[in-house]
């Protein structure tokens, strides 16, 4: 298939997906579970792909994702809380951030467009803040190898969490209290659009010469260095880029939840994302995307019936709150033990994948036919 035709089909497919989402939103009840799954799935897809860039493509085993998401979520919330609501949100502190990006932008671009511009600016700021912290953290940490890097980044995520809950930063972060009243989204299209753009950028990066350098580092650091790849620079670049998108993902998560609290960004969240990456296949972008939707759908929606105590098996009260999670974790264990390479392995799901399959099938059918004759 020609390159230009392939691109056209991809664009048409993506447009079709967005159209489908739009139609679904118009026709279905907005409280339907599927919208929760789609929104959260899109956000987790972005975070999982950003983690995959680091763990799967560059081979840096980092466990700091939750910390960078926290920075993104807080940056977004702090920059966008309307000035009118500051007193309500910062009940115990005098807020020192006395502006709000959407309001500032509204005064320039008008109400509707201004809010949108402000929100997008705040999302970018969230990414930049996370990326900047990643740069600071990366300076000392990236010299470490494998497990030591993992535990050091995990440690930094915990430190970040403690710092954001600190009273001394109360005028900015509201201490250990919730941040709320910032602009959120109601349509599923918004997180889809943002995630799609970000994932596209990551894919472009992976397919560029930087991406090839990342993969070289993953395969063999010493050989890569011998080939003239600047290890420190490329590792830092992967780390900062990954954290930038984790920050944007964190900001989206804040919008999805409508409130932010530092206490939720624990190591458990990083583990969850890591599981998504592994189930999707380490080193496969589409794998991460597919598995994040499956993961969220399983944990939030499909297994929901297991928590209801109305079905009793053998008169035993097995099905009650929490059973869903047990079944879910057993499924994950089975995946980890028996499908070690994940859903996609290191392959990518693409149009080529389909056409090659079809060609192979046709060839096999042709051979079979000749054999019979």
């Amino acid at each position, binding site marked *: 298939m020609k390159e230009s035709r392939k691109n056209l089909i991809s664009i048409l497919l993506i447009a079709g997906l967005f159209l489908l989402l739009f139609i679904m939103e118009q026709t279905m009840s907005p409280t339907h579970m599927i919208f929760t799954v789609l929104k959260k799935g899109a956000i987790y897809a972005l975070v999982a792909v950003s983690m995959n860039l680091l763990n799967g493509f560059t081979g840096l085993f980092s466990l700091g994702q939750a910390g960078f998401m926290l920075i993104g979520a807080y940056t977004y919330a702090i920059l966008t809380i309307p000035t009118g609501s500051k007193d309500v949100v910062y009940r115990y502190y005098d807020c020192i951030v006395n502006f709000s990006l959407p309001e500032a932008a509204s005064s320039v671009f008008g109400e509707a467009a201004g809010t949108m511009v402000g929100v997008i600016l705040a999302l970018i700021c969230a990414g930049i803040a996370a990326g900047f912290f990643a740069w600071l953290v990366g300076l000392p940490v990236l010299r470490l190898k494998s497990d030591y890097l993992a535990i050091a980044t995990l440690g930094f995520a915990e430190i970040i969490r403690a710092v954001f809950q600190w009273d001394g930063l109360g005028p900015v972060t509201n201490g250990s209290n919730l941040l709320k009243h910032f602009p959120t989204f109601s349509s599923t299209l918004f997180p889809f659009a943002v995630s799609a753009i970000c994932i596209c950028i990551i894919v472009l990066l992976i397919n560029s010469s930087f991406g090839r350098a990342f993969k070289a580092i993953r395969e063999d650091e010493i050989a890569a260095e011998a080939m003239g790849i600047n290890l420190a620079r490329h590792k830092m670049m992967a780390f900062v880029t990954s954290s930038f998108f984790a920050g944007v993902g964190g900001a989206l998560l804040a919008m999805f939840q409508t409130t932010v609290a530092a206490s939720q960004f624990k190591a458990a969240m990083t583990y969850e994302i890591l599981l998504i990456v592994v189930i999707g296949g380490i080193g496969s972008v589409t794998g991460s995307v597919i598995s994040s939707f499956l993961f969220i759908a399983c944990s939030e929606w499909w297994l929901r019936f297991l928590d209801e105590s109305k079905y009793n098996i053998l008169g035993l009260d097995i099905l009650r709150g929490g059973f869903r999670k047990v079944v879910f974790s057993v499924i*994950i*264990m089975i995946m980890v*033990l028996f499908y070690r390479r994940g859903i996609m392995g290191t392959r990518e799901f693409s149009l080529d994948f389909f056409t090659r399959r079809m060609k192979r099938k046709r060839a096999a059918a042709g051979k079979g036919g000749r054999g019979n004759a």
Partner: protein
Amino acid sequence: MAIKWRFHFIAMNTKPKGDSLTMEFFGKYLSYILAGISVGGQYALIAIGYTMVYGILRLINFAHGDIFMCAGLMMIYAVTAMPLYLAAPLVIVITVLLGFVIERVAYKPLRTAPRMSIMISAIGVSYLLQNLAFYITGGLAKTYPSIPWISDKIQIGTAITKRVTVVTPILTVALVVALVLLIKHTKIGMAMRAVSKDFETSQLMGIKINSVISATFIVGSFLAAVGSILYFTNYTGVTPTIGAMPGLKAFVAAVFGGIGSIPGAVVGAFIIGICENIIKSLGGTWTNFSDAFTFVLLIVILMAKPTGLFGEKQTDKV
């Protein structure tokens, strides 16, 4: 340790009468230091499990903290059914079994897989144990039973504390000495040392790798069970996620002391336990940072001496 000395120093400097002030300092902070030593001993018992498993399998056993939590939870259910002198040994035995079964089911099939897979498996086990605990308890904090002799109140100097505070360091040191003797002077100990030096060669020499690894997990789980009895005597609320933080800190202690080294893990655990409690004693906003400080310590040691206090230096061959 550093902070303790700094305080000492300030106390000495600000007022001239050093000797009585030292007494005053200890009087004021004695209870915190005692608590630090006690919790340090408990971390040490968990940390040994981490460091031994890492030494042999090169695996961060993320499920170890949750085994510790399970031991605590089982104790709560066990004492409702039987007297304590039966419950405690039974809980230890079941915890050891749990550790053994986890290794056989979740780690053994992945022995030839890349190291990442086995670590993910450990995270999966941790997730499973937490969710199972959540399902069984309904997510509510359960109160740990008070164990007669060790939870009695006693007075040391000016501080009033539970007897477990004194028992923990003694018991920890005794167990560690026993463990070191086991590793230095028995056949299985020799096998453990050999496997941790070189996995494949020791296999070629006829060491049964699987039984050595099982033995490692059995020792680790046993110590975690003992640790849980001591730990939950002081901190009585058991929730499904309670194992995560002590587990993480114990792992940090293991890294701090040089991973793979048992004395290192013990020293690291005591240092972390004491520092953490001294920070708590400063009161106010500092208490927020008692957990974070552990990680600051970790990062400082990793920067200054990447293999920890007692770790062996490894060189990569091309």
